[in-house]
């Protein structure tokens, strides 16, 4: 079982981990506690909201593109809060490289556009499945959701790539340039 000691009742609401984002920040004065703490809460919330946008997109405002952008904004928020250390972290912690995400999204979208042909329907045709879920009610699942998922992945890939190349990449270049000036 767990080797962790039981937490006394009085300390239940005390945070266990660090509240600010991890990573060594070279310039401490540039960090704002408020933003970092807020980013902690907002990051998962915004991601969940982006998935909501993705799913309701067929009938209501939303869809793959806005969903992907909102999810991308969650990463942008982390980057702004954590600065360069967080930018590097997003790059290194992400198991999937951003270009792969883009390629995958594009692939999913194109294949789902061509898929109806296999069932004798025209390209980009969509089918609807309606079923009842207890407590939730009637749910419509539309096959064009798959295209939206492709777009969603594509946009997240683009935002992450932008963060990597225009965010931490430019900071790295600036640091190297400053290092060259300071050097002999």
């Amino acid at each position, binding site marked *: 079982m767990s080797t962790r000691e039981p937490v006394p009742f009085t300390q239940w609401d005390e945070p266990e981990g660090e509240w600010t984002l991890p990573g060594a920040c070279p310039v401490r004065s540039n960090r704002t506690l408020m933003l970092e703490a807020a980013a902690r809460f907002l990051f998962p919330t915004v991601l969940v909201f982006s998935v909501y946008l993705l799913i309701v997109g067929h009938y209501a405002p939303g869809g793959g593109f806005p969903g992907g952008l909102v999810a991308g904004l969650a990463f942008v928020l982390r980057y702004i809060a954590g600065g360069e250390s967080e930018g590097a972290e997003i790059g290194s912690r992400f198991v999937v490289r951003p270009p792969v995400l883009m*390629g*995958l999204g594009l*692939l999913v979208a*194109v294949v789902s556009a*061509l898929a109806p042909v296999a069932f004798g*329907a025209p390209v*980009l*045709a969509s089918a609807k499945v309606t079923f009842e879920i207890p407590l939730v009610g009637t749910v419509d699942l539309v096959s064009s959701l798959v295209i939206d998922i492709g777009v969603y992945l594509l946009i997240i890939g683009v935002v992450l790539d932008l963060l990597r190349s225009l965010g931490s990449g430019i900071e790295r270049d600036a640091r190297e340039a400053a290092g060259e000036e300071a050097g002999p």
Partner: protein
Amino acid sequence: MSTLVTLPVLLPILGAALTVLAARSARIQRLIGLMVLAAVSVVAAVLLVAADRTGPVVAELGGWPAPVGIVLVADRLSALLLLISTVVTLAVLVYAIGQRISDYGRETASTTFHPIFLLLSTGVSLAYLTGDLFSLFVAFEIMLAASYVLITRRTNASRIRSGMTYVIISLTSSLLFLTTIALVYAATGTVNLADLAGRVAALPEGLRTLLSMLTIVTFGIKAAMVPLHFWLPDSYPNAPAPVTALFAGLLTKVGVYALLRTQTLVFPGTGPSAVLLVLAVLTMVVGALGALAQDDLNRLLSFLLVSHIGFMLFGLAVYDARGAAGTALYIVHHITVQATLFLVSGLITRRTGTVSIDAMGGLARRAPMLAVLFAIPALTLAGIPPTSGFVAKLALLQAGATGGAATAVVAGFVVLASLLTLYAMVRVWVRVFWGTEKEPLPDDDPTDELVVGTARASRPMYAATVALVAVSVAIAAAAGPLSAVTEKAGSDLMARTPYIEAVLGREAVLG
């Protein structure tokens, strides 16, 4: 059959996705790119045969019928241009692969080139096939976004500067296009081209002229029509040879195609258009005279490209079936020959290490094959019989001669511009290939794709160039059947009914 129409658009996107995923293996990327373009060529050939035999092939995306949904239409004109464009794109890809292999070694992977190249091809295919104005805008955007990346690869100060000119001009024309679409939609309530054909006719004449002029300006910028041409000789020569060849061969011609399609289908005139005739003369003469003043080989070719856009405008301005047929034939001829010339220019640059004509000389002795490879497309461009240029120009001149007094005068300018082209090309040939042999300039930066010295050109590069020369010879050889197709395409364009009937159904034409 209708699924087939979507493949020239979807296959390159699929290829782009796969090449992004296969970014680590240069070999797989190359294979995907070549296979996709070869497949699209086959599809385009099948579409051409089908469109020629049974009329336009229409695909309704998602099964939604025409004025509501988006349609892709392959009629004779679009299928023919799609075929020739894809063949040229394929040859340019082979050349680009060859150049990359010889410059960077066999195992170097380029992660962005192949996906972007295929996306550019998607944009071109969509522009030819789309049946509505907004998808045309999307097609142009895909094409331009890809071209921004291709034109600014291996950046240095001068490339950033010319790239900025290109991006700003393109964005301006895109904004103008978007405004035009908004105005058209506000006035008619539709963006479907076939539907517009009927509805625009009901608009007041002033409004119709305004919309027509707006499309001429929009597509005129993209087609590099004088006086909207200034960006082209400034930006194209700054890209590597295969990229310039692709841009020069395809992008401006897509603008001409859009002009041809909208002016005949949506804004039909009743006789020769004075505005277009004047613009055609200006474009032909300014381009040809500009070419004579150039020392940079690529800039010279860019000015000639502008000049020959005027030829295509002339065919459109005559405004009858013969004129439209002449323009179609000229586009087919010009896509091939202009791309070939830029590829040969790339090979010459590799031999001499410079783009300046003054610094070259006596190349015929060291590279006789290059001399022949340059001479054939040069004479084709000038329109010497029996090349494809002669066939295409003859079609235009015939249209001009039968179109009336004004068009007959402009036909004289066609001859003048052809002579100026011939003079420019002969001057280049004499100065580059004859005369005293000059030492090739040393290569300052071996990794730079634009000017790479000396003699390092791989076999695929030559093979691609020879293949394109062969294509243009084949066009001349197949002039009979080809002009039969373009003549039918021309009368289709003028009659308008085959297109409208295919998209909206028979009732739309009768009612």
